[in-house]
């Protein structure tokens, strides 16, 4: 059973639908025992970091996630779930979970492309990912594949060793980060068509081992 963590930060239904389509049993839950008893955890999220982290703490799920991480359970963070695993966020100056060292940054405004076109914020739509490391969860992803993003902040780990893939939008930012049994995507694999489903499927069959 895969636990999809419900901390009132939206977009859970889409993740559940994608896993059902792929044939992996899952449940949406904020129950600590269920989460710790699951085989794997998906940690999605949209919205603001400050509210999300407050909600996690209120439900006691910050400690549950840390515990699950330490026991080696495979964890997938999505979107906001790829941000609040870092130490802190510029959004609402929120102190986050600190599973990976680093900060969450706001896209600088105004932001310009290489062709000097003004770029909108949020970064919303389909963009590619440059894989700079191999990882079981991104196995089979083609450089031409694109993924659906919607965000104004991005994760910036303290060390390059955590960065698995990057995406260009005015800056080259980390769009897939990972450490041990934790992997996280700034984009939404559950809304990224076939390549996104492939990432979810890879995660669902991943044993949590990753040799950096």
């Amino acid at each position, binding site marked *: 059973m895969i636990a999809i963590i419900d901390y009132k930060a939206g*977009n859970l239904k889409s993740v559940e639908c994608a896993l059902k*389509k792929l044939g992996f049993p899952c449940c949406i839950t904020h129950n600590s025992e269920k989460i710790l008893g699951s085989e794997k955890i998906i940690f999605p999220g949209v919205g603001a970091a400050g509210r999300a982290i407050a909600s996690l703490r209120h439900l006691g799920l910050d400690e549950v996630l840390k515990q699950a991480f330490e026991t080696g359970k495979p964890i997938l963070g999505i979107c906001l779930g790829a941000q609040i695993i870092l130490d802190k966020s510029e959004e609402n100056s929120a102190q986050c979970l600190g599973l990976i060292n680093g900060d969450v940054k706001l896209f600088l405004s105004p932001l310009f492309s290489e062709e000097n076109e003004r770029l*909108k914020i*949020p970064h919303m*739509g389909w963009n590619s990912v440059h894989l700079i490391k191999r990882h079981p969860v991104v196995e089979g992803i083609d450089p031409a594949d694109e993924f659906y993003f919607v*965000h104004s902040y991005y994760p910036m780990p303290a060390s390059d060793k955590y960065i698995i893939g990057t995406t260009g939008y005015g800056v080259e930012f980390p769009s897939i980060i990972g450490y041990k049994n934790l992997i996280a995507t700034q984009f939404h694999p559950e809304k990224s068509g*076939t390549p996104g489903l492939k990432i979810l499927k890879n995660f669902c069959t991943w044993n949590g081992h990753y040799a950096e």
Partner: protein
Amino acid sequence: MLSKRIIPCLDVRDGKTTKGIKFKENVDIGDPVEMARFYYEEGADEIVFYDITASSERRNIMIDVVRRVAEEIFIPFSVGGGIRTIEDMRAVLLAGAEKVSVNTAAVNAPEIISEGAGAFGSQCIVLGMDVKKVEPSEKTPSGYEIVIHGGRTYTGIDALAWAKKAESSGAGEICLNSIDADGTQQGYEIGLTSLISNNVNIPVIASGGAGNINHMYDVLKYAKADAALIASIVHYGTYTIKQIKDELHSCGIKVRNTW
């Protein structure tokens, strides 16, 4: 680099796709879930559903459509039409939509934008704007006015001022529909799209008037739209989404071309 999005729009009434009733022989009319699946498989980047169900009692049919779409289609989709309250938004989002679009309700009570953004995040609040060209005046200096009730009622609100206000209230995106161009297949309203897109910092979807691929090229290239909404040209089978994307790509527009 971010791709420009190509977004088919499906009008849904009482659970059925209605666009193109007059052209029945050319069009798949019927189950919006089937049509959405078809466009998803063809490479649509996102899908917009516009619920034109007249009575609120039948609203549950739309929620059921949303639920079925969410089970089958793994790209973002939004729902507009008849969203009047935070509870309406919640129902649509819980059923699996990524975004909700508000139009008339936002004109009548603008706080629905900030309340919606506060409750669900800006990324899922789309402001739908129906716009008509008017003589520039003190009230409407941009020369474009917001209209409601399908273009029948002028509101006296300036389109540019309204777009900026919605952005500062927390709208995450604007779907900009030119009533003058809508349904003509004579091209998007370039002046309007360019005016709005260059003066807000949130994405703008251009809507109304797409008749051929040159129209799409112009609105994406020159009017700086972030996405192009299409209806007739794909519903009537003039083009497939793949053809549109291949041609835009060959003209140098960045689009997603594998899926």
